[in-house]
């Protein structure tokens, strides 16, 4: 009896410690896809591509979020409703559900609020919900679609929900996810060594989690100041513009690295035209390291393996 008790206690301690060992896991996690209601996604897609949403009926969401560029804009700065370029580079929309907060500075932690801002901002859609609802209610097709999707009436909540359902349906696994799931054949030697370098040099300290970033803010220029004092613009202050706290100066949301090869140019001010340059800037200003060309190439190869697989 006593032996049994001792055995039980040791076994339970072992099991307990194993569950704790499991916490020391990889900094990067494989993608977990959530299924969306397909009818809602269809409606959201139609709304996303419809210029009705802007006041002058010239822009849709898709004007700046191109599907072939992983729903980002190829340009440095997209044009706003007033015809002038926006202050920051257009970010990608894919994997948006994995982000903890949104926009470059991460001032929105709620997609609904963010969408509200996009619709009503005079620089982007320059519209009001009333006009949008009126326009949609006049359209028989839309009324039918809203009914089919299970919305009782056309209101801001329904429109936001449909668009967000569409945005959330965009997540697709990449070759790297298959690799993390155990299919080691998916990555080449260069890509695997790139991943190792990515972890060794400390890129994965910030670009971590399921979304390879997106769940924290970091100062742009940890090791040495990135922005030149003479040429600094308001957008470069980052989260400081929202919080007005001196400690938040130059703090930006760490963007996701999934699909990174398709979302050039890089950084909020589009200052890096190529991925290689972006990696070098990150090394210099964030890590304080000057890497060899071979390392940069390997890391770039690894980042390319994060692209979603489209059939």
């Amino acid at each position: 009896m006593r032996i049994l008790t001792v055995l039980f206690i040791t076994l339970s301690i072992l099991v307990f410690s194993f569950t704790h060992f499991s916490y020391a896991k990889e900094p990067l996690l494989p993608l977990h896809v959530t299924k969306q209601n397909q009818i809602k996604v269809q409606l959201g897609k139609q709304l996303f591509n419809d210029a009705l949403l802007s006041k002058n009926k010239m822009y849709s969401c898709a004007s700046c979020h191109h599907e072939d560029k992983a729903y980002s804009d190829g340009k440095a700065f997209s044009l706003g409703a007033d015809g002038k370029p926006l202050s920051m580079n257009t970010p990608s929309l894919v994997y948006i559900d994995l982000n903890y907060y949104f926009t470059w500075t991460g001032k929105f932690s709620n997609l609904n609020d963010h969408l509200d801002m996009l619709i009503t901002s005079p620089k982007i859609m320059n519209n009001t919900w009333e006009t949008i609802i009126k326009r949609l209610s006049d359209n028989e097709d839309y009324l039918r679609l809203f009914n089919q999707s299970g919305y009782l009436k056309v209101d801001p909540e329904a429109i936001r929900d449909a668009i967000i359902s569409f945005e959330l349906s965009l997540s697709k696994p990449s070759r790297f996810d298959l690799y993390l799931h155990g299919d080691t054949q998916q990555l080449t030697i260069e890509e695997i060594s790139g991943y190792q370098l990515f972890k060794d040099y400390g890129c994965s300290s910030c670009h971590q989690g399921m979304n390879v970033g997106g769940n924290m803010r970091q100062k742009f220029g940890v090791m040495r100041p990135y922005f030149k004092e003479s040429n600094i613009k308001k957008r470069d202050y980052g989260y400081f513009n929202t919080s007005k706290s001196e400690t938040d100066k130059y703090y930006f949301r760490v963007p996701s690295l999934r699909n990174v090869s398709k979302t050039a140019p890089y950084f909020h001010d589009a200052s890096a035209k190529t991925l290689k340059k972006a990696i070098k800037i990150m090394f210099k200003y964030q890590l304080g390291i000057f890497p060899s060309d071979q390392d940069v190439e390997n890391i770039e190869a690894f980042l390319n393996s994060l692209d979603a697989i489209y059939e």
Partner: protein
Amino acid sequence: MNKQIKHYIALFFIFLLLSLLIWTNFNSQISTLKSESALNVLLLELHKQDSDISQLILKSHSNLNSNFDELAHAQKALTEQIESLKLLLNTNNIQNINESISGDNLYFLYKKRLNQIEKFKSLHANINNSLRYLPKLEQQIRSQLDNKKFSLLIQTIDNIVINALGLKVFTEARIAQKNHRILLSLEKMTPDTNEQSRELISLFIWHAYKYQDLRKEMNLLIPQLINNPLAIELDKLEKIIGKIQFDKIYKTKKMRFYILIYAGLLSVIVVAFLINRRYLINNVLRHKKLSERDQLTNLNNRRSFIFNLELALKNSTKNNNHGAIIFIDLDGFKEINDTLGHQAGDKVLITIANRLTGIESKFCKNSLELNIARLGGDEFVILVELNCPDFDKSIIEQVAQEVVMQCAITLPDELKNADLSASVGICLFPQQGTDITLLLNNADKAMYHSKRKGKNCYTFYQSS
């Protein structure tokens, strides 16, 4: 009054009280209090979420968690809960009652905490990077330099790296000071090395200083994160809300009425139960008594005698006691029954029974116990138990003698001409048997012996 009617009246009363209770329940404000419990549940959840966040921060701090996904999820959940708490506080109009609780202070503290968590995340990432890069630089420098010539330099760099890793442990301020001194001395050591390694060493020094600054910041942040004022504020809020709710319950008249009715119903049920219990116990006792007594003579009957005998036998084997059965058969009883009738016979039996109980009271002492029973017809039996281990036959003889004498006394009134005597047989236990039927049988045999001897005498059983 009829018993059943009483029952019905009691049931009716209980029913009346019960319906009154249900009515007051519907009428009182208990249901409104239920809706307020949502607030309590939310506060509890908030508390849990907050402590979860603290736990996750510590996990990340000790590198058990290598990503912030869980922390970000917890932050998101906390945000949602705070929003809904704010909404509930506004709808419940609690601020009107007590000015000290408004969601504003809570919201402010929550914002502050979120900011601290964000700071923690970025600082943690930077510190981890430095910790990863410093050993790497050390290796590069080692490969560049001659091991023997620059052994002091290499050792110093080694020391710094070890200390940097050790900064994770407790005596941080002291190690930091020491590190600072070593770094200063390291700067002085560089001149004799070549160009490339000098560059590397200066890079190393730069990184080490950077790391120290980050560490300092982190050391300030961690205590703030751990003793967070949000939890204290939540505690305060919980207390205030609990007090308000208690006051609400206590101060309503309807609630008091409800409690009064409830207590009344409970006490009525309890009293009814107690009365019923007493009644049942009395009933059972009476029936038990009846079942043990002979109806005519009020002596023990055969069943209770056998029960007592069993007990006595058990006792005798356990305590090494002795005892005897004195078997009594009345001589001439049949003639009385036949000539003077059954009524006269019954009278005789009652008289004899009374005389025998007289014997019982005469002989009963601490060491001696008599138990008289009527087995049936004109047969009586006395169970004698001696409560001392040494056996004294003379006492039993005395008892038997007394029995014979008492039975031979002339009967009163119209029965004085009747001729009545007793034949007595005695069987001892445990010497002459420990089995009930055997004992009774033996006593019976001894009694017949007395009869044959000429009646009106006693005989001890002899096995031969």
